[in-house]
């Protein structure tokens, strides 16, 4: 059986997806918002989200110890994003 691709836009670029990035603590303050919607190429890995953040964050290196959650579950930087995903950038925690 031969698969037929169903991408709506045929061309050189993969289709784009929209994801919501959740930001907390100093990231939220630096971005000026706790949620940022980003348009990204389909299957962008979670770990590449940082470089798409609003200034000044995108110009910084990702902080040491940064972890990721995808749709409120821990995930790894290589996880591919899909349209409508919610990705959270989780800095080293300090609760308690």
């Amino acid at each position, binding site marked *: 059986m031969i698969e037929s691709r169903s991408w709506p836009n045929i061309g050189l670029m993969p289709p784009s997806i929209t994801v919501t990035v959740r930001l907390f*603590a*100093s990231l939220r303050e630096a971005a000026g918002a706790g949620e940022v919607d980003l348009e990204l190429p389909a299957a962008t890995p979670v770990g590449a989200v940082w470089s798409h953040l609003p200034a000044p964050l995108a110009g910084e290196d990702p902080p040491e110890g940064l972890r990721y959650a995808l749709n409120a579950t821990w995930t790894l930087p290589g996880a591919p994003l899909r349209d409508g995903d919610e990705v959270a950038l*989780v800095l080293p925690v300090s*609760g*308690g």
Partner: protein
Amino acid sequence: MIALTADPIALDPLVEAVSDPEHGGLVTFLGTTRRETTLRPVEALVYEAYEELALAELRAIAAEAEARFDARVAIVHRTGRVAVGEPSVAVAASAGHRPAAFAACRHAIDELKRRAPIWKQDVHADGATSWQDGRGVVRPSPDPEHAHEPVR
């Protein structure tokens, strides 16, 4: 009982939540930020949580402690502004005997501090604020809306 709350934490509801006629030991932990966490006096804390994941993580931590120590565990963490000297977190754990109750309570608070996506902002007496999130950003007082400068 696993909760995030903007209100002061009362210990009794946690104690009641884990009480069990077959459990002989009940241990609680209250965590309170001390007046001096840095060289600059801290006047208050502001806690921010990634609420969905924090609740899931606290539930997972409690379930682990319950399974490992045959215990019942309750966890409540404050969000928002907390005055210095007020508890920011409470854990209660009961078990058949006291070693397991101590171990379950200790496990829960240790894992919470390590894993729960909750951040603390120090609010200094001079109005400056700094999130304890590894980025080392201090926002000086008085509130310049967008300023942030790395320290060290």
